[in-house]
């Protein structure tokens, strides 16, 4: 599981991408990204999640998101990515 906190934009998104790649390349084929601590995310942050998703799918893995934050859900909805990622309202639900 990857817990993300703060704001994810063009400045911080590369760090998110790096951490996701690290986790996936370490052999994790089921990754849960917990965005509950994220108050803001723009499309550059989504780009990092999409990069992680592409990478894990190459290994037949899964990447799920935990998110209840309005602003983050909104950008996921605008871009249609809420239909691409499994979005859960709790870590328990994502892991279950």
């Amino acid at each position, binding site marked *: 599981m990857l817990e993300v906190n703060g704001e994810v934009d063009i400045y911080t998104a590369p760090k998110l991408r790096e951490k996701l790649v690290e986790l996936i390349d370490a052999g994790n084929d089921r990754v849960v990204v917990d965005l509950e601590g994220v108050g*803001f995310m723009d499309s550059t942050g989504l780009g990092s999640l999409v990069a992680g998703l592409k990478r894990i799918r190459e290994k037949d893995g899964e990447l799920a998101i935990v998110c209840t934050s309005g602003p983050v859900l909104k950008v996921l909805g605008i871009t249609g990515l809420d239909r691409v990622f499994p979005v859960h309202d709790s870590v328990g639900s994502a892991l279950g």
Partner: protein
Amino acid sequence: MAEERFSLRVPAAAAYVGTARIFGGAIARQAGLSEDDVDDVKLAISEACAAGVREDGDGTIGVVGERDGAILAFEIVGEDIPPPLSDDLVATPESFRRSVGYDVIRSLFPDAAILSEGDRSGRIRFAVPIDG
């Protein structure tokens, strides 16, 4: 002439996008917008500024917020805000990233304008009605 005008100029570097976002959010909040609308303004400014970020951090990005009557208008100006992609152009990862950002801005503010002077220098404008 606008009743109130606020402006900020920051380096065209990724590290300053958050500063521009906070600036825009503060103007929106001070104008009395709902928190949902403040979030939309912050997202649009973040996308617009991200479009103007240069890898070398050279140049600047300007953010202007103007309140005129019941309208709060924003303009983001950068030396490196390219025009939206034409359908006949092949997207690079960078141009595709910007294109997604422009789509997000237009989804939030359908009347948003992305104006270019030549291939690079451009400005992004959008406005929000102020209730009450």
